[in-house]
């Protein structure tokens, strides 16, 4: 029963969602919408489960004296946001949104900005003309890099044109083939899941 019920549910919902795609009938759409609604609700609960697990792990870490100050910082942040939301709401001008705009958003943007530096170190190390393939990779990257700066346009009209050509034809051809492959791989995996052949999510018994 512990495996059969989940497998059956997976099968039923899989088939319904597959079938509704091909119908524009109202019933199909309303079934689809309610399943998606359920899906969102369940997802929200999984988030709460994750947060509970996170808090449990942090508290255990604190009781063992491992990284205590940092774990406390995380927990304070975690509790702070809901508390601010309860006290002042979440609309424009609330402390909740202030914390988002002045603490969370800048930190996230800065982690993202670290990428610029990592792009630099990867460029230095990763583009070596060791083989024919590596040379093609290197040369294409250089052409596109040059073609995308305004200065290159001033030197020669050809750069942007070559960049567009590479992007629109050979590069796109490869991307298309990758997408076709991924589409097929995803389709077969999804089919195995619906048929209950793929049961990774039921592991552990």
């Amino acid at each position, binding site marked *: 029963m512990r495996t059969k019920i989940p497998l059956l549910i997976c099968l039923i919902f899989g088939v319904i969602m597959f079938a509704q795609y091909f119908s524009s009938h109202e019933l199909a759409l309303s079934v689809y919408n309610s399943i998606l609604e359920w*899906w969102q609700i369940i997802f929200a609960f999984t988030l709460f489960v994750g947060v509970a697990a996170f808090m449990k792990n942090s508290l255990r870490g604190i009781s063992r004296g491992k990284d205590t100050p940092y774990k406390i910082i995380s927990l304070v942040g975690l509790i702070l946001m809901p508390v601010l939301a309860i006290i002042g709401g979440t609309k424009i001008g609330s402390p909740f949104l202030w914390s988002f705009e002045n603490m969370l*958003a800048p930190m*996230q943007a800065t982690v993202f900005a670290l990428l610029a530096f990592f792009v*630099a170190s990867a460029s230095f190390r990763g*583009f070596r003309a060791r083989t024919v393939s590596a040379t093609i990779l290197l040369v294409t990257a250089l052409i596109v890099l040059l073609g995308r700066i305004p*200065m290159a346009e001033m030197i020669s009209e050809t750069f942007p044109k070559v960049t567009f050509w590479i992007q629109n034809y050979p590069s796109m051809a490869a991307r298309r083939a990758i997408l076709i492959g991924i589409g097929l791989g995803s389709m077969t995996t999804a089919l195995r899941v619906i048929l209950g052949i793929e049961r990774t999510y039921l592991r552990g018994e």
Partner: protein
Amino acid sequence: MDRLKTRWLIFSGLAVVVVAAYLINIKFKTEPSPATMKAYEFIETLPESSVVMFSFDHEASSLPEIQPLALALLRHAFKNDLKIIGLSLFAEGTAIGYDLMTETAAEYDKQYGVDYVFLGFKPQYISAILGMGESIRRVFPEDYLGNPTDNAPIMSGVDSYDDITMVVSIADGDRTVYWVEYAGARYGQEVMAGLTAAMITSYDPYLSSEQLYAVVGGLRGAAEYENLLDQRGGGARGMLAQSAAHLYIIALVVTGNIIYFRNRRRRGGK
């Protein structure tokens, strides 16, 4: 030189180059690419009071690149007296989208509820996108400020994609794909995108198969668009720093190879 020292050197080099270039700041004129031109012409030729939907499908972290893009597109729409319905499919894009819209609306003296409305955020974007094909009101019974969506004059006669001329998805990831695959494929909604430069290539197939109407991409796309509008914004300002950073990366790639070949020759000689 060991691995860490090389990294520090590369990192400090980048910081110096970008900061210096930003402080100097010369302005460039940029020729619009065909994709930017197509977006511009579409909005330019729309009749007054057409309804356009702006979806802020990005995170706070990509704001630096998104902001000039979104501002350019919003300004164009407000300037031509189009009606704008804003929303967000990324929680973090919500407050940003609202701020950007109110900011530009103020520049053009537009009124909330009449000329534009911001519906807020919906998680599980696929169902939101599909739901709006049936009824925008049902997906967003209230707007971001908590007013019933029905009360906004802009919403009278507008309830599904049939009433919307274009969805502009401002994105830093794959959300636009879902607009294309669900709103586009299922409801025949035209979709165009304002994308971070990183995302441009991944949308090429959609662009060339015309599933996606047009793309304005990256800081450069923003600069091109600002040019077309004959305005100066964040796009044009960052272009020198951008060029300098590009040249720096090219220099790194070239240096890396010179070192590699020199070492190989030395090793080969022994």
